[in-house]
């Protein structure tokens, strides 16, 4: 008895064959093919159950909003397109006239151009620098002196914790919590220790040799903990990134200062 080819069995399983009756008859009589069909069915069910287990909810609403915002029409101004060529032609004529006039010794245009060049040269000799464009400053953080613990809400699901001024004896413990707010608690805070907060941001400066406990909400979309300028802990949805091996890892991640 000729057996059903593997691809045909798979197509039968996926309802992709037209002549099912013929295959039904064969499968009723051939234990080899029936066993092979069972194996394919089990493999198919395994794959489906495994990939389904990792699925997350699609952010359909947010994506739709983003696409709608990107679909805003561009307003065109046809009148401007007509004016530009004329303006360019006019400027070209003026420029040519100025060059022609400047070529004539004693011409007022020549004197004006010379004066303009001298004033530019003067600026350069004085080295008056054109001020650099300053980056927009971050929102001024609120300054909370003397506090041992601070809690904030994430901003758009994001949290940034910045710790600085740690000595080698400092210990930073990062914990994931079920509460919706992030917190930073500094034990044995020194007189110089200070907290600063901003939207979705906690800074603890001059922590010295203190023990710092950072609590990050599990529900936070993104979170980052920096210790003296280096990132030590990052969370992106349900993925964690540890930038250096933590000292201990049971229900928390422990980092030491001043490596």
């Amino acid at each position, binding site marked *: 008895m000729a057996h059903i080819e593997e691809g045909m069995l798979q197509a039968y399983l*996926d309802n992709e064959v037209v002549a099912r009756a013929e295959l039904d008859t064969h499968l009723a009589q051939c234990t080899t093919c029936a066993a092979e069909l069972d194996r394919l069915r089990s493999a198919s069910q395994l794959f489906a159950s495994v990939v389904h287990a*990792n699925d997350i909810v699609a952010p359909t609403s947010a994506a739709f909003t983003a696409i709608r915002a990107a679909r805003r029409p561009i307003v065109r101004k046809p009148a401007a397109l007509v004016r530009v060529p004329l303006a360019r032609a006019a400027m070209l004529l003026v420029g040519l006239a100025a060059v022609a006039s400047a070529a004539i010794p004693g011409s007022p245009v020549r004197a004006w151009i010379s004066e303009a060049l001298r004033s530019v040269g003067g600026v350069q000799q004085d080295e008056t620098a054109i001020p650099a464009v300053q980056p927009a400053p971050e929102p001024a953080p609120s300054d909370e002196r003397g506090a041992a613990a601070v809690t904030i809400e994430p901003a758009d699901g994001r949290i940034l914790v910045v710790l600085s001024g740690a000595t080698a004896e400092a210990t930073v413990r990062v914990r*994931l919590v079920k509460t919706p707010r992030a917190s930073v608690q500094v034990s044995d805070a020194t007189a110089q220790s200070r907290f600063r907060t901003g939207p979705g941001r906690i800074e603890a400066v001059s922590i010295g040799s203190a023990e710092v406990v950072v609590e990050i909400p*599990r529900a936070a979309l993104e979170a980052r903990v920096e210790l003296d300028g280096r990132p030590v802990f990052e969370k992106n949805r349900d993925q964690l*990134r*540890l*930038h250096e091996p933590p000292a201990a890892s049971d229900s928390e991640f422990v980092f030491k200062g001043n490596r």
Partner: protein
Amino acid sequence: MTLGPRGLLDFDSLFQKLYPSLFRYLHRLTGDADVADDIAQEAFMRLLRQSLPEAEVRPWLFTVAMNLVRDHARKVERRSRLLTTAPVLVSSTPLPDESVERSEQVGLVRAVLEQLSVRDQQLLLMREEGFKYEEIARVIGVAPASVGTLIARALRRFAELYGSSR
């Protein structure tokens, strides 16, 4: 029903119908929700410039999405080759407490899927999204008559890899 400049309402309902499936496919393929969302949105943005019969929309979307996945993979690879700083230690440490088991499972499935060829991943994931063999053949670029065999072999490989990884 044709998609076009007058078909804005059609686009909206198509989006609601197809985005979840495309996102799910891309998330299963890449393991990254942000990348899946970005690529799905980009594919739909490109769809706005097309005029297609409705039956062509889904295969077209998934084809464009796969091209974008490949572009993304090339960019990531190029970026990692250009890194001059020491590589950052990426820990596969799962979330503690009750998420440990789930995180291990997520990692295991990703590790097994990544051992399949990209084509095998595409075949199996498109099949999971309910694509017919003819549509799968068109998107992947194989003969329709060979799709059944390719799927059967990919499933067998997946089952073997998954079994040996546990």
